[in-house]
């Protein structure tokens, strides 16, 4: 292939000193005098004559290509500027990977380094943010039955336990330290764990027959840290009891 190429080059070499005058002559940009002068030279110089012929063929080939490519548009004479339609889509859409690759390849070194540093900082901040939010304590909301008293947290230092029944009931304030001692488990889980034990206590508190006078119970259960309900009162639910300190 190389030999063939070299042979081609040798064949077309034109050593004539006026060979470059051929170009203005060929493109009709020589003055009349220059053109006449070069025509005279062509008759005497076979090298330039051959080259003129060869260049003419090259120009013909390019012209053919031009006609094929742009020929149709030569006929079209649309004077308007056509706004690009918004729905026009490039047939070759670049993927994000290609775009990144192009950016990396074309960017200067300092820009690549800066991008890498920014990316690292961003990743570090993201990790710190995730770690911070994971360690945040959960705010526990104790679900209560519709008829049961509610347990609510208040923004004060002490948490108020509402053991309010349908009729209003009474309130007991639990020191924050007591609640904090139960922090390892969630409030709900602690309630569930306390349920069997409290149910036992509930049996002691609640008379087998609610219709019996409560005075008897209060006489025997004075050690309890809460008021024993009377027969007219509705009993607090197990969930409410579970919230009470042991």
């Amino acid at each position, binding site marked *: 292939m190389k030999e063939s190429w070299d042979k081609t080059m040798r064949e077309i070499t034109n050593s004539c000193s006026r060979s470059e005058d051929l170009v203005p002559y060929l493109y009709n940009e020589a003055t009349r005098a220059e053109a006449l002068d070069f025509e005279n030279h062509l008759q005497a110089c076979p090298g330039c004559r051959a080259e003129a012929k060869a260049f003419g063929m*090259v120009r013909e080939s390019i012209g053919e290509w031009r006609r094929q490519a742009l020929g149709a548009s030569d006929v079209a004479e649309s004077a*308007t500027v056509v706004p690009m339609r918004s729905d026009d889509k490039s047939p070759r859409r670049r993927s994000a990977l290609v775009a990144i*690759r192009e950016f990396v390849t074309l960017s200067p070194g300092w820009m690549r380094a800066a991008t890498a540093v920014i990316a690292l900082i961003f990743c570090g901040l993201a990790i710190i943010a995730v770690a911070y939010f994971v360690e945040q304590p959960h705010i526990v909301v104790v679900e209560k039955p519709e008829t049961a008293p509610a347990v609510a947290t208040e923004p004060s230092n002490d948490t108020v336990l509402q053991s309010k029944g349908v009729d209003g009931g009474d309130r007991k304030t639990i020191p924050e330290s007591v609640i904090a001692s139960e922090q390892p488990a969630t409030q709900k889980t602690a309630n569930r764990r306390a349920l069997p034990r409290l149910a036992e206590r509930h049996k002691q508190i609640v008379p087998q027959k609610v219709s019996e006078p409560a005075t008897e119970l209060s006489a025997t259960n004075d050690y309890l840290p809460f008021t024993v309900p009377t027969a007219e009162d509705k009993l607090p639910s197990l969930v409410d009891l579970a919230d009470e300190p042991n």
Partner: protein
Amino acid sequence: MRWCAGEYGSGLAPRGRHERMETVTSDEQVVERALSGDAEAFGEIVSRWQRRIFALAYGMLGREEDARDATQETFLAAFRSLRSFRGDAKVSSWLHRIAVNQCITRQRRAKVRGETTLEDETEADGASYSAPAHESPARVAENQERTDSVRRAVRALPPELRQVVVMKEFEELTFQEIAEALDLPLSTVKSRLYTALRQLQMRLKHMASEIA
């Protein structure tokens, strides 16, 4: 706002500089209007030059799709840098310079991305080419083959030679206009064109001998 090269035909018949001189308002005056806030003025520049810029881009890039994009980018770049246009050069030279730079940048990017180019693909230009009815299929095929060869040969030229050939053959600019657009001495333009034609002749002959 975006413009596209439409049908690559402008209202201005760009066949020669003489016809362009008939234009009532010069390009420089239109640019002045655009600079003074006339929103339609730059559109007029686009409509005047889009066809020629497209032809230049097509010759440089060899693919219609790329040429269309490059034309678009040329006018966008020109619009953005309108305020920096000092009027030292002609508007045409300014636009051509932007277009050439756009094409070169585009080729460099394509090379980096490893996209297929004219050299290793045969674009279906022939599909849109309607051959004259009197031509035989063999003749059509021969023309097509010759066109493909010349496309490849032009593409293989170094950029500094290719742009001169394309400006001359596709846009039919004068040597003086090419020199102004590329900011080169007139003699350099002539010698580059001569070198380009010689290299094209060599390559075409070489391709013909390989086929044979």
